[in-house]
């Protein structure tokens, strides 16, 4: 039995077009893994399959050796998720949203009160906890989502662009949170297209291009293998990105006509 999360030849198609094609990788406890890819590369679809929101068209996902479809409830109980877009219920206050998220995980009122109070204090949201989420900035919503994902102390955290909209102090805090969680043996999958951030946070990187895994290694190894100085250069090489300066010139010229 493999401890951790394992994907075996996972494919997902929409209207007969494969968006994720035969993706396989394994994440072990204590690992913080970056999941990189350009827009439309299949990152979010993979994440949705990992969270049980979308079933794979083919292939299997295992958690601690057990297919997640065999007992989805047990798998979801160990899972924390931060979605790409901050889809929340704007009519609820921050505290109410966290109470909902924690309550749905079966946490009791007293336990929740303690956890929510502490989390809001640490994330700097104490003063706005009673305000509805429609008055929150993007960064504040992101903090609420992070807190909601961690309330039930999950073993596996799947985060889709978790740092988007956060201020510098919050980004530093979240980086430290990732490190602390990894030290406690949690698995973190950090899906992003922010190369510099992934480079700072993750011990390992999986690069996805047109639905396939192009590379899966540590940041240092990838830089050595591709003979590039930064992860951004590695990514550009692996995903065969077009010349951006040329595209920029073309667009500006088009607008001038």
């Amino acid at each position, binding site marked *: 039995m493999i401890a951790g999360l394992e994907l075996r030849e996972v494919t997902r198609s929409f209207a007969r077009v494969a*968006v*994720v094609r035969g993706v396989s990788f394994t994440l072990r406890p204590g690992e913080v893994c970056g999941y990189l890819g350009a827009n439309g590369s299949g990152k979010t679809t993979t994440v949705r399959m990992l969270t049980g929101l979308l079933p794979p068209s083919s292939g299997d996902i295992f958690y601690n050796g057990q297919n997640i479809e065999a007992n989805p409830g047990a798998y979801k109980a160990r899972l924390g998720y931060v979605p790409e877009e901050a889809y929340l219920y704007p009519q609820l206050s921050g505290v109410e949203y966290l109470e909902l998220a*924690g309550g*749905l995980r079966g946490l009791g009122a007293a336990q929740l009160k303690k956890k929510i109070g502490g989390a809001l204090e640490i994330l700097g949201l104490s003063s706005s906890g009673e305000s*509805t989420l429609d008055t929150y900035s993007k960064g504040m919503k992101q903090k609420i989502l992070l807190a909601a994902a961690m309330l039930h102390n999950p073993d596996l955290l799947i985060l889709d662009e978790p740092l988007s909209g956060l201020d510098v102090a919050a980004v530093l805090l979240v980086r430290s949170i990732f490190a602390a969680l990894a030290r406690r043996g949690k698995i973190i999958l950090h899906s992003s297209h922010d190369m510099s951030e992934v480079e700072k946070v993750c011990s390992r990187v999986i690069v996805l291009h047109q639905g396939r895994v192009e590379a899966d290694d540590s940041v240092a190894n990838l830089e050595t293998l591709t003979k590039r100085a930064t992860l951004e250069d590695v990514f550009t090489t692996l995903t065969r990105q077009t010349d951006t300066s040329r595209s920029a010139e073309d667009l500006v010229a088009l607008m001038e006509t």
Partner: protein
Amino acid sequence: MRVLFRFFLRSFFISEVVAQGAEPQVLAITAAAFFAAPGIAICFCMTTMGSAINTDPVEAFFLALSMILSALLALVLWDDLLPTPLDYLILRPQPIPWRTVVLAKLLAWGVLMSLFMAVVNLFSCSMLPIVNTADQVTGIYLLRRMGAQALGVAAGSAWMFLWIAAIRGAVALVGDARQWARAARLALTAAFLAAIVVSPELTEPSIYHHLALHPPWWCAPLFWFLGIAHGLNGRAAAAWTPLAWEGARQLAVAVPVAAASYGLACWRLPRRALAAASGRVRAPWPSAMASRQPRRAAVYRFTLAMLARSRRHSLLLAAWLGLALAAVLASLASLSWSVPSPSLAQTDVVALAAPLALCALIAVGLRHAYAIPAEVRANWLFRVSETEPAPERLLAARDVMLVLAVLPPLVLGGLLAWRIWGWEAALLHLLFAGSLMLLCVEVLLARFPKIPFTCPYVPGRANLKLWGFGYWLAFSTFAFGSAAMERRWWASPARIVVASAMVLAATAALRLYGNRWRGALPGCKFEDAPEPVVQQLFFGAGTDLSRS
């Protein structure tokens, strides 16, 4: 100015509250047909009645209807009454003076209201003077009567609209009192909807003449503006003249009050748009009555908060509450006509049925609201945290229904019964009505597999065209049939106890069935499939659009 005017006019039809995703033109035509229907139907019926017809009560009804509808339109489009903070943030950086934006908004409202009132009253204003055979007039006098009715309607509707606009402006100035403002708006909506249901009573000549002789305070505005119509049409009795002057005076008061309140709110809007709203909220009061099971309690609190704060859901519930209120008003009226208070065995069935009708209409309203999604893309939270079998979460919908649809009618009905018939009769009435209310809740939620507001809505499921009569029959049997039985059995209370026990047994059996059915579900339902005929046309089926 023209672009802004069109933008604001169009925005009324694409309002989230009115109909999300509907084609504005289709919506406008459907609404026009719907609101023109009473005028066409009543005028047609009157032309076929023959002999001497006095249309005064019908004219009063159309004036009342117009006043109520103008208020309702303003309440439904409450957020669009003023330019919104978003309008300010988007339009202010453009080279457009702010007063142009406000004027365009006012112009759009003026056009919308004029069109709306024209649709509602076109037939009644033009046909009723012709149909009126009591004092037949021709030529210029006919035109004068048509114009008088139109002016009365316009004045009454404008007066209502101006006061709603004034309240809207005042609420915007108060700023943070959002919960009170929301509650006031919903109460007004429910009251006006109830008034619509009750207003056809005006067409009954005896009621009309009774009210006209001694107009009570709650329908005084109707008679002010009726006074204007009668004063202008040249056939008014002397009694109408002071009412007409009162109408003119009230309109003269409403105009500056609305202008001041509205203008001040528009002037303060930039400050509000740029200042961060605190948006502080408190949990709705029944939240304290949550279950001890965490998942059930979480869904229960979520449901209550959404019902209280989601604009679309609260308006929908207010509409059902308006119907329920109308039923209660009718019962209270039937009780107040009987002095001294009759014994329960002699009481009007409508009065006995009031708590049941109230419960049924609120419960159906809740069931309707549950099926309408709120922020459907946010339902991922429920999906990724589905770690236990479905029943615990699904039972929350029933908890909310018990608290909102059973408890208030039961308490109100019990108090009323105790006051009129004494405590023994009240206890029996409570037992019988309470058991039926519990049965109603079980029937409505027996096979409901969703967490409220989390599943997309597929219209047409209720199939009102086919089942509408059946639903009405079920409601009538439940409320009025049961009340008639209660009244008949009143002589031997043992019968009521036995009947209540049988209803409770049926409720328990249905609850058992529901629990087993929920227990067998693989999970809560978050996707709804269209009707089979739509699936066969491949509209919706197999087109998953969730892409990375």
